[in-house]
């Protein structure tokens, strides 16, 4: 019955808490979305009014994709498909359709419970279409595979492996593009490619996506595209997917792998003849982490590189002093501004983030802060923020650029309609001027000479190269836009040389992003491009050091590092010129309107609740006998409002059945910033709760509860709860029983900005403060105060090592105060789990956490086992437990190992010595303790 009680208890006090009950970050609902619904032939499209135009475009894309996929899959989806659109990634991160946090790199998802497809719009119509296609492939694939299995009466609810699921979603939603090419080149050339046999080792990574896609491209070429659908249609036939592949392709998996690997080697190894890794043809300046948006800054006394990097898990602004090399020729980056630990610099939006710096050493950068992005101006001289700009109608801001005189700031931003447009902020008058206002994706703008014009990247290209990202100019005097380039390639990161005499940009004309110069004719008109660099993998951004030297951010070995190279050293024979052959088409492209997609209807969103999950359970044990019950969860389409129903029966004899029903009914609402929950419960039966008694007892309890959670930010929140319950308890077999009407109130403050590795936190701080008061308002049988202070801080000493500290105090003071429990692998190690019980408890720990074995492989003749990421710990614990009088201080020292199983749970094993006799002596022998659970 512990389990039943545990569930009720959890719902009473933690019904709306964040990801990990005691601590955890918060998913903050900054915005109150006024959901509307657009019904097309096959879809229910949810959107909010300001975003209507893009939502209709998305609906049209979805219908087109449906027709395309029904042919590809030879399959029909018979239910209506819910599509939920957000106008930005920041809004998307607020969604309650899934419980967890959504990382920056997630472009959308398809969730299985209600079959919802949830997609953010990120400023580009083309990318929006791609993501819609990608997610709908998931919808079709899942339906197809589910039906194949169900048709064959297979009870095994498996899906194809993730590499196939994501691979086919990419394969059937987009063409093989520059990004995919860059990833595979890097993987093959730098030996980080994983054949099918070992692809599980990169599960969930972007490399896995691209390898999956590439494998299917290979299958299409080598065996025929029809084989891909056959893999799904044969899915029922074998337990292992590798056998399905073997059967479908008619060869062993080893042979297929060999062929695929050889095919990739044939494709990519010859590239090395004319293309170069970054570290070969340039000087490597950094070695660790992700380093982006380099900005060179020079004065008489300083020569530095400022940039955004992520070396330790938090994206921050770094500086490299280019005049200060160590004896090995390496630079030591210094953190200028720590990001992602506090609300004001909540997120840096890697890899899109960029910075700029002006002559007054003011750094301009953008972070998410609360409900939208904020443009910050930071003085590198006074080391403080001098100004910040946040606009209600601008959600995402990117690419700030100072004008030459420093009086204006150019950037691109997306508004509530989803439009990604160009803006100029006057830094003296603080006026904001909007330059473009349309659904074309305008971005990465830079000032032209004398700040009279702007060069920017846009997908407004029309004609033969429709929707390609070309370079455009904006004439500020005429407010007119003209083509600067017109090719079938994508451009990015334009930069003028310091004297504005020449313009360079990244271009993917040769299959990956390299640096090209935009050439002018004698009249000064741009008429072609010349390739300068020939890196085998992409350049992401660069900055001019002088008129010919540049520092690039290059992608290599699955990281972004800086490289210094001199463009003048590139021989002319390596520079390839491409002239603009076509005259650009002047008018812009248009989207097929929804009107062409067939009958549609629209209206406001009305809540309807559908099942999330249901389960039933029958338990029998020698102590409590046989009990049974079930649980049901319902929620609305947006996941904002959830109802839980829990019913259980604890009768021991048939005459008790009616009187021994236990239930919990609760509602949890997360739609607004204040999350609330309330509910009713009844419990009756035997229970064993060591916080009350050392033996089991009989209790009947019923009542209700209300709780509120107000997130102050992503990192902090206030929680409060109140419950009122009638309780009749028979502790220690006191047959007179104890009655009480218990009213309990709690107020908590929680802060959590910790960074986690596989087994627990490695950086940051976690705090919980709680005060509470419980009183029997009827019989006066209980009255106690509660106080909890739990403080944990993690001091990072290396990339994967930290000293973790904890100090905690738990107090319940008063009549019938509940006990706290300690002992075991989670707090006082060495002491028997939960053997220490008292109304007061203090705990303190210091633990050194470090990587122990990065990869342990055991190979049997028939089987191979791999254990990655085994971590070690050296620890010291101390604490005490008492009721009225303090008894003794207990402790332990020791070491342990931890191992995370698929990041789901952690196995822990500790060895050490207890410190006994009021902290006066070590135990004679050693203790050995095994358990599961995260590090504190």
């Amino acid at each position, binding site marked *: 019955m512990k389990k039943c009680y545990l569930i009720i208890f959890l719902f009473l006090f933690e019904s709306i808490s964040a990801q990990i009950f005691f601590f955890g970050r918060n998913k903050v609902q900054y915005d109150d979305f006024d959901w509307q619904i657009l019904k097309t*032939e096959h879809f229910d499209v949810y959107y909010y009014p300001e975003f209507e135009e893009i939502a209709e475009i998305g609906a049209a894309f979805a219908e087109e994709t449906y*027709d395309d996929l*029904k*042919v590809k899959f*030879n*399959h*029909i989806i*018979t239910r209506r498909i819910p599509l939920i659109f957000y106008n930005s990634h920041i809004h998307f991160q607020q969604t309650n359709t899934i419980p967890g946090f959504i990382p920056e790199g997630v472009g959308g998802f398809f969730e299985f419970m209600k079959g919802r497809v949830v997609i953010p719009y990120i400023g580009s119509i083309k990318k929006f279409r791609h993501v819609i296609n990608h997610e709908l492939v998931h919808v079709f694939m899942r339906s197809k595979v589910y039906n194949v299995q*169900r*048709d*064959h*009466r297979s009870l095994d609810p498996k899906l194809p492996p993730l590499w196939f699921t994501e691979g086919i979603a990419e394969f059937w939603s987009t063409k093989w593009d520059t990004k995919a090419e860059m990833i595979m080149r890097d993987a093959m050339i730098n030996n980080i490619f994983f054949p099918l046999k070992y692809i599980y080792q990169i599960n969930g990574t972007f490399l896995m996506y691209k390898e999956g896609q590439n494998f299917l491209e290979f299958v299409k070429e080598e065996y*025929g595209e*029809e*084989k891909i659908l*056959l893999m799904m249609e*044969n899915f*029922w*036939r*074998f*337990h292992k997917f590798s056998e399905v592949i*073997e*059967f479908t392709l*008619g060869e062993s998996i080893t042979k297929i792998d060999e062929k695929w690997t050889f095919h990739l080697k044939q494709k990519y190894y010859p590239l090395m003849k004319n293309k170069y890794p970054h570290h070969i043809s340039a000087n490597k300046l950094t070695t660790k982490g992700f380093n982006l948006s380099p900005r060179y800054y020079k004065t008489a006394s300083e020569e530095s590189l400022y940039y955004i990097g992520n070396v330790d898990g938090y994206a921050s602004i770094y500086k490299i002093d280019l005049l200060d090399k160590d004896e090995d020729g390496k630079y030591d980056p210094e953190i200028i501004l720590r990001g992602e630990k506090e609300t004001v610099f909540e997120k840096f939006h890697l890899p899109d983030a960029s910075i700029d710096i002006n002559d007054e050493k003011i750094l301009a950068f953008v972070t998410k802060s609360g409900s939208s992005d904020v443009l910050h101006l930071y003085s590198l001289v006074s080391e403080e923020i001098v100004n910040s700009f946040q606009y209600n109608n601008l959600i995402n801001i990117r690419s700030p650029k100072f004008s030459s005189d420093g009086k204006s700031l150019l950037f691109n931003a997306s508004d509530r309609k989803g439009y990604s447009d160009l803006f100029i902020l006057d830094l003296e008058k603080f006026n904001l001027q909007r330059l473009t206002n349309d659904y074309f994706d305008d971005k990465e703008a830079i000032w032209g000479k004398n700040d009279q014009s702007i060069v920017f990247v846009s997908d407004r290209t029309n004609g033969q190269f429709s929707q390609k990202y070309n370079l455009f100019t904006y004439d500020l005097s005429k407010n007119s836009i003209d083509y600067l380039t017109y090719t079938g390639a994508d451009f990015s990161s334009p930069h003028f040389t310091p004297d504005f005499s020449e313009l360079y940009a990244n271009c993917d004309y040769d299959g990956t992003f390299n640096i090209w110069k935009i050439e002018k004719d004698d009249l000064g008109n741009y008429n072609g491009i010349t390739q300068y660099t020939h890196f085998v993998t992409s350049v992401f951004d660069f900055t001019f050091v002088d008129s010919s030297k540049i520092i690039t951010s290059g992608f290599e070995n699955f990281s972004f590092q800086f490289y210094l190279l001199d463009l003048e050293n590139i021989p002319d024979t390596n520079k390839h010129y491409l002239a603009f052959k076509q005259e650009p088409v002047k008018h812009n492209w248009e989207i097929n309107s929804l009107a062409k997609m067939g009958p549609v209807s629209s209206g406001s969103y009305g809540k309807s609740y559908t099942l999330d999950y249901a389960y039933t359970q029958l338990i029998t044990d020698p102590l409590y006998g046989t009990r049974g019950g079930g649980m049901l969860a319902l929620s609305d389409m947006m996941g904002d409002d959830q109802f839980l129903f829990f019913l259980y029966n604890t009768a021991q004899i048939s005459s008790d059945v009616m009187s021994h029903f236990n239930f919990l009914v609760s509602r949890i609402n997360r739609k607004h910033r204040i999350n609330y929950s309330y509910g009713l419960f009844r419990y009756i039966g035997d229970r064993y709760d060591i916080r009350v008694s050392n033996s089991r007892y009989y209790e009947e309890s019923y009542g209700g509860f209300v709780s509120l959670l107000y997130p102050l930010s992503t990192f902090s929140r206030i929680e409060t709860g109140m419950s009122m319950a009638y309780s009749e308890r028979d502790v220690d077999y006191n047959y007179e029983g104890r009655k009480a009407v218990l009213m309990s109130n709690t107020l908590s403050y929680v802060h959590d900005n910790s960074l986690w590795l596989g087994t627990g936190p490695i950086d940051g701080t976690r705090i919980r403060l709680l005060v509470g008061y419980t009183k029997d308002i009827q019989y006066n049988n209980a009255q106690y105060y509660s106080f909890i202070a739990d403080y944990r801080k993690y001091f990072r000493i290396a990339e994967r090592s930290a000293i973790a500290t904890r100090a905690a105090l738990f107090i319940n003071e008063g009549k019938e105060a509940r006990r706290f429990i300690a002992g075991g692998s989670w707090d006082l190690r060495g002491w028997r789990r939960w053997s220490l019980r008292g109304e007061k408890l203090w705990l303190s720990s210091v633990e050194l956490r470090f990587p122990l074995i990065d990869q342990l492989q055991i190979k049997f003749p028939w089987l191979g086992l791999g254990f990655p990421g085994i971590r070690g710990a050296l620890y010291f614990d101390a604490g005490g437990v008492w009721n009225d009088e303090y008894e003794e201080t207990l402790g332990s020292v020791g070491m342990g190992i931890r191992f995370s199983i698929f990041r789901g749970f952690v196995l822990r094993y500790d060895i050490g010595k207890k410190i006994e006799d009021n902290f006066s002596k070590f135990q004679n022998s050693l203790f050995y303790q095994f358990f599961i659970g995260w590090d504190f």
Partner: protein
Amino acid sequence: MGFLRKLLIIILLIILNSCGGWIKIKKIPTDSRDNLMYGNTPQRDFYIPIEISDSLEFSWEADTKGSHAHTAVTTVSRFLFIGDLAGRLICYNRITGKKVGELKNDGDISIAPAIGKYRLVYVVNEFKEKYSTVVFYDYIVGKIRHEIELPGKFVNELIIENEFVYLLSEEGKLYKYNMKGEQEWMYDAKCLTISIPAVYKEQILFNNAKGEIIAVEKNFGKELYRKKITKSFESGISVSDEKAFLGDTEGFLFCFDCEKRDIEWKFDTGSKIRSLAVFDNTNIFVGNLNGDFFSVSKTDGKLNWKTETGGLLNTPALVFKNLVVVPDQDQKVYFINKEDGVITNSIEFGKRVKLAPVYSDNTLFFGADRGIIYAYKIIMN
């Protein structure tokens, strides 16, 4: 009654219920002939030369408790046979819908069983194995006579003719067996083959994923010709007189002259064709995966009419003198006027329609998810 006894009885009932009785049919009139294979004849003839009404009366519904592939029922006398994807072959009384018996196998039966003299022939794609089993079942005695393991997968419909059966695997192997279970010959096209083969005179014709049409001589299994005519086929062939009709993955419907061994005409439907093209005396009827259904002149391939259903047409239609009965995987069956392509009636099943419609004794048989067979009587005017 004690709890254990109750439990035992329940278990016994479950076991008994799951063990179907084997199919045993004492007598079939020797001159009776019905739908003995997919498409009724080795030429895949889906034309019934009678006029029918589009008004139907529900007759019966049988739940096989399984699922169908995109195949059809076969009927002989008052019996109806269907295989399911859980490996069961079930026999029903065609008139009443009552189950006569079933045979259980561990795999799936994706194609229609074929009925010969005293023999029921069907193929099981075996679970967890890379081979399939051809079963020759004696339905008079109620006994399996032969079980032959063949490599690969069978999703291409059988041909039964003159007491021989022709089987075509997805790997492109064509087999001829006699009713004693003896292999006469095997021809290997060595190519992915998703095709419904058909007979033209002394030839077996089929197409494949390489876009070829292959003719194999019936008696000795020799390849007569192998001609590439398009990118790829995933449908099948139907033969009328000297012409073969087949649709490709690009959406082209071809008329192939079997004597000249060349394309006579082709018609662009615009989307992939997976179903068989069916015909009457003058026209060809075909649907594509975009949900468009076409009537095209047999002689020159000119369009008569096109009907857009918006569904997924991957199963062949049934043609009558006045109407075409078109199954749509998107949960419906349409009755289309043959003259102008207008949908005069439809039946909404609320589930994916999987089986090709079959006509027998004024009754139309349909099949939809999951494993439901419907019998509708045609109300004559």
